[in-house]
């Protein structure tokens, strides 16, 4: 463990420059450049708002703002996009960098860290946009929004643990990536992002509680839209199980790393 941390420290420059290059090359030669990072999620929120606000707005209790639904949607998206970006990119990170892994000696653990780093940068920009949109709609988030970094840590731990685990397995069984792309879509709809928990039948609610993303997303909505602090006791199990998942992922990664290059 100590070795791994030391290696990460020695390669910090590489990790940072990879994150920078990742962002740079994603928007290289596009006219709007980094603006796309903001425009894409905004467009998605705008579409959902347009399509669904008529149906949903009546059912968002406790908030009188006309734009309440959009704000609700935006907070949920903020949480989800961080999670789904880390999971879906971790899934293929080893396969995509196969030729590098085969030819160059470097701490392999850098790769998932680069994924997390660039997802965090993206998500941070989205957070800034979210706050600006909130302010423009006259609903500047309260002090409870300061909980966001803590919620991000929770989300990252869960996403990285899951992503690392599946990313390692995906090197050996490539179906996992395809399968997870479908699962992620389904998962999105099984999490109250575009709809409210109030419309869920009570019988299904107990199942909903098994979804870690349910807790994380509702806390995001809580601190941003409803201005209420997180229920720490409900987040604690998520954080603990995320850390356990992360440790299992790391152990699996260490076990599998030598085998990985053989099959890449």
């Amino acid at each position, binding site marked *: 463990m100590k070795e791994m941390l030391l290696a990460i420290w020695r390669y910090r420059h590489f990790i940072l420059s990879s994150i920078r290059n990742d962002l740079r090359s994603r928007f290289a030669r596009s006219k709007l450049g980094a603006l796309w990072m903001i425009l894409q999620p905004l467009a998605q929120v705008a579409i959902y708002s347009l399509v669904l606000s008529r149906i949903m707005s009546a059912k968002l209790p406790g908030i009188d703002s006309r734009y309440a639904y959009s704000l609700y949607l935006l907070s949920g998206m903020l949480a989800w996009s961080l999670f789904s970006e880390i999971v879906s990119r971790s899934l293929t990170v080893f396969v995509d960098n196969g030729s590098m892994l085969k030819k160059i000696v470097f701490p392999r653990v850098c790769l998932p860290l680069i994924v997390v780093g660039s997802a965090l940068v993206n998500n941070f920009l989205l957070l800034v946009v979210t706050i600006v949109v909130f302010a423009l709609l006259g609903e500047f988030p309260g002090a409870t929004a300061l909980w966001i970094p803590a919620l991000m840590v929770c989300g990252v731990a869960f996403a990285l643990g899951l992503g690392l685990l599946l990313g390692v397995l995906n090197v050996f069984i490539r179906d996992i990536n395809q399968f997870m792309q479908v699962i992620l879509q389904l998962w999105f709809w099984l999490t109250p992002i575009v709809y409210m928990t109030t419309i869920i039948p009570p019988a299904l609610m107990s199942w909903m509680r098994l979804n870690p993303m349910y807790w994380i997303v509702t806390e995001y909505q809580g601190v941003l839209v409803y201005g209420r602090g997180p229920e720490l006791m409900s987040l604690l199990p998520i954080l603990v199980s995320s850390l356990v998942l992360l440790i299992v992922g790391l152990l699996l990664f260490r076990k599998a790393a030598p085998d990985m*290059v053989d099959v890449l």
Partner: protein
Amino acid sequence: MTHAVLEIRNVGKSYREFGSEWRRFASWLGFRSSRIKEHWVLRNIGFSVSRGEAVGIVGQNGAGKSTLLKIVTGTLGASEGKVIAAGRIAAILELGMGFNPDLTGRQNVEHSAGLMGFSLAHIQKLLPDIEAFAEIGEYFDEPLRTYSSGMQMRVAFSLATAARPDVLIVDEALSVGDAYFVHKCFKRIRQFREEGTTLLIVSHDKAAIQALCDRAVMIDKGRLVADGAPQEVLDLYNALIAEKETADTIRQVVGDDGTTAIASGTGEASFERVKIENTRGEVVEFVGVGDTVDLVLDVLVHKPIASLVIGYMLRDRLGQTVFGTNTYHEGMVIADARPGDRFQLRARFAANVGVGSYSVSVALASSETHLVNNYEWRDLALVFTVANTMRTTFVGGTWLPTSVSIRQDSAPISFDVASGAAGSV
């Protein structure tokens, strides 16, 4: 005094076939299954290399050379044994890995240097050197996608050799790029070696191995089969290839470097053997510049032929004809050959050609052109290498035996270039 910089101890590599990936996952948890098939690609490889030594690694494609190199660099784990290296290992087989076409040369260098484990401060210190060595001018600050492949290779090589490694692994990579830069690269490699860098060189270019290495090892089917002076090992390597070639009875012969010899013709007569012999009658694949050698063609006649002309042609590595003639021009047309007749043509010549690889094309026809009756035509019937071992260093495709003299008023000195000896007259 020598001490090993690199010690390869009984290294072996096996790829395991699990049948099912679930069985592989179970193996991480410590469950051993009897149904795992092990497939050894490298076994019992052991040798050590001292500081400043240059070792060539030869072997046919698929013999395990690159697997060994990957284990030495550390990207691939050994299944048994270990590699002990003192100091930093750099490999030129990974040239340009991790380069991003949308970044400039400078940005790519900064990034990839980080990947090589250099600190930011160290990279900044190395950058001016890298820029100067690459000699690509203003392009260094242009996106990589605007580069020619030669320019990319210049940047990549400059980066790979920016700091002197303790062990440098040189793969075929150096065969690309312009001649000027390749020379510059070799100069830098030689300089590293003088400063104590150990070289591991993998190449199909036998002349390069002979010129650069003090030692060679040969790997065949995953085993170390020879370890010794380059000439000895290369001779063994040639013998191995020759053995493989004679075993082939098909008309399409694939050479060790991936070249394919194709025979065409109507088949009334055919070549049984094409070889080059030195003046002692030994079959050789290396010819020294200016050495006298015999090209020997053995012909077997299968059907009655009224008129048989044997022709041959030497080509350089680019396929340009260096020299070619036939028995029609020599006034030695064979008349009325009978089935079962064997003829041997022996063409003695001095290899007054430049260093490099040459191929021999041979033909059997009824007249001076193979277009009338082509009994057999074979390209790449033989490939041999001309190396400069005895003569003065020279450039160009032709060796002109030269005698150079310098006259000073008082004491004239003359150099006899052909022998390389200098003496006062």
